[in-house]
């Protein structure tokens, strides 16, 4: 009964054949579509089905905005001093270290210069993944320096906001950054150097109540949440549910607080067009 015996080499052990899919696919919160991550990346992190704009980190944001993704960073070594020696459930320096390790950034903003449509521009991009993109003394200083650099070289300035607001762990010092940045913007305004504010998801609190709303043009990406007070605080204050679409960029456009809501694909052409308009003054 030799045909029960296998004479040749045994078959490969039937090890399970698995392909790792983790991290390769993303589910869209807007339309529940499962998207291949590479497709999403190639589509500027916008869902190809429903056009929902996914958040992009500061580094990628700069790559998307500058010509050929080329830029030079400046004033990026600033680090917080923990001015209040703040401790809540965790010490603030520990939170900082953790955020620095996770993001590779020293704080919640990257300053960069380069060209957009062939024109020199200074861009400050906030990093929402660094302690909620909150603004403490370092973010305040970095953005102020970006403004001063734009002023010095008479280069247009773009600030990309993505922040929960002032950084509570730096208390009053964070609050004062709002005044500091706004004062620097007053000088930029006096000098007629263009300043465009791009509000992305989410922009709240002290950031909305200072530089994010002070652009010569205030523009936002579709569907971004933008406001002064957070929705939960408002609900608790007025004790009623908030209407659908409240504090989305389309809502702010309708109420008259944005010049335009611009699709991520249209951002560069829109900015180029705006800079062209403002170029005569600059």
């Amino acid at each position: 009964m030799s045909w029960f015996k296998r004479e040749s080499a045994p078959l490969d052990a039937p090890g399970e054949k698995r392909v790792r899919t983790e991290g390769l696919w993303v589910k869209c919160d807007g339309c529940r579509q499962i998207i291949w991550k590479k497709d999403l990346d190639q589509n500027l992190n916008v869902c190809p089905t429903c056009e929902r704009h996914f958040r992009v980190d500061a580094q990628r944001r700069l790559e998307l905005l500058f010509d050929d993704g080329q830029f030079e960073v400046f004033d990026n070594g600033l680090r917080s001093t923990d001015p209040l020696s703040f401790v809540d459930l965790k010490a603030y320096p520990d939170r900082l270290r953790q955020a620095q390790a996770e993001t590779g950034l020293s704080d919640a903003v990257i300053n960069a210069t380069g060209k957009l449509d062939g024109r020199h521009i200074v861009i400050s991009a906030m990093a929402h993944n660094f302690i909620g993109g909150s603004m403490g003394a370092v973010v305040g200083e970095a953005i102020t320096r970006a403004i001063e650099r734009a002023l010095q070289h008479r280069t247009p300035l773009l600030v990309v906001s993505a922040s929960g607001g002032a950084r509570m762990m730096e208390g009053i010092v964070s609050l004062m950054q709002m005044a500091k940045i706004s004062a620097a913007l007053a000088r930029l305004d006096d000098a007629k150097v263009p300043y465009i504010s791009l509000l992305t998801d989410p922009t709240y609190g002290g950031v909305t109540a200072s530089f994010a709303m002070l652009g010569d043009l205030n523009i936002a990406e579709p569907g971004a949440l933008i406001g002064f007070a957070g929705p939960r605080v408002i609900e608790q204050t007025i004790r009623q549910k908030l209407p659908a679409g409240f504090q989305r960029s389309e809502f702010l456009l309708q109420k008259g607080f944005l010049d335009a809501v611009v699709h991520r694909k249209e951002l560069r052409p829109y900015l180029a067009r705006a800079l062209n308009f403002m170029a005569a003054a600059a």
Partner: protein
Amino acid sequence: MRARRKEPASDAAVAAGVRYAAELLGQQAQAAWNMVSEADGQSDSIASHAQRELEQIEKQIAALDAVAGSNQEARRQLHNLHQQLETVRKQIHAHTHAWRITELARHPQRPYMLDYVQRLFTDFSEIHGDRAFGDDQAMVCGMARYHGEEVMVIGQQKGRDTKEKLARNWSMPNPEGYRKALRAMKLAEKFGRPVLSFVDTLGAFPGLGAEERGQGEAIARNLREMARLRVPSIATVIGEGGSGGALAIAVADRVLMLQNAIYSVISPEGCAAIMWRDAAKKDLAAEAMKITADDLQQLGCVDGIVPEPEGGAQNDHDEAARLLDVELQKQLRALASLSPNELMERRYERLRSLAQFFEG
């Protein structure tokens, strides 16, 4: 059986005994601190209870001191215990201090903006409305005469009774309030009059309408415009300085704070709710955020502290106003000699220096 004669305890035994007692007392002191730090509300009565415990421990230390005699080891133990006690005492004081100030800043009998206006100025004539939406009564603006000079007065006004509280919206302005304030400042600038602002708000109103009408934009614009106002300005935090809603009338050449006023980026309750996930930890948050006048002066965020009558401004409105008057006059005189360009330059330098960071 013969009664055993009482032997004097050996050095080692004394040291061991004192060490054991000191450990127990140390634990008690720690427990007293834990009780205070974990208290949810009523922290004042709990803190005084803890203080009494500490006094008890102190008495027992005195008793142990007699036992220890000249035993070096035991004395060292007691010395350490004493230091631990001092640390706990300081912790408890610091812990309750900021919250006690917060309660004074919010005292229902504390003088409000119009109480000062009545005492400091003559010929006060209120101006109303933002010329766009309405008149926000949480924000009061008006022309006034200050020691013979015309000035513009701006401030958030709280209400004394329920009806007025409602009308004043608990001194939480809406965007139209901030826009009215800006209009008043621009008016002062046009006619070369100084701007005196009085800050007393929990914060800008977080309501549906406020968002629809651009609370963030209104505050932002004020910050920018105040920074380049061509007339002298003095802002005084008289009670609560709540976040952006306070700052929106407090970008000035001089920022003063009353001794028992507070100024912070978020209310202690709000901070506690977010950082401790428990609003009852408000006293912990108050301490951690450094919100008292002394704290702010140390951080370089205010230029002067205005003293208050014994026990707080609520005890004597006239005296509180007199003390504020002294400081305001002094500061205004110092600013009067500066040209608009010098004012703006120095104001910018003042704001620009609000920077603390490590570089490199």
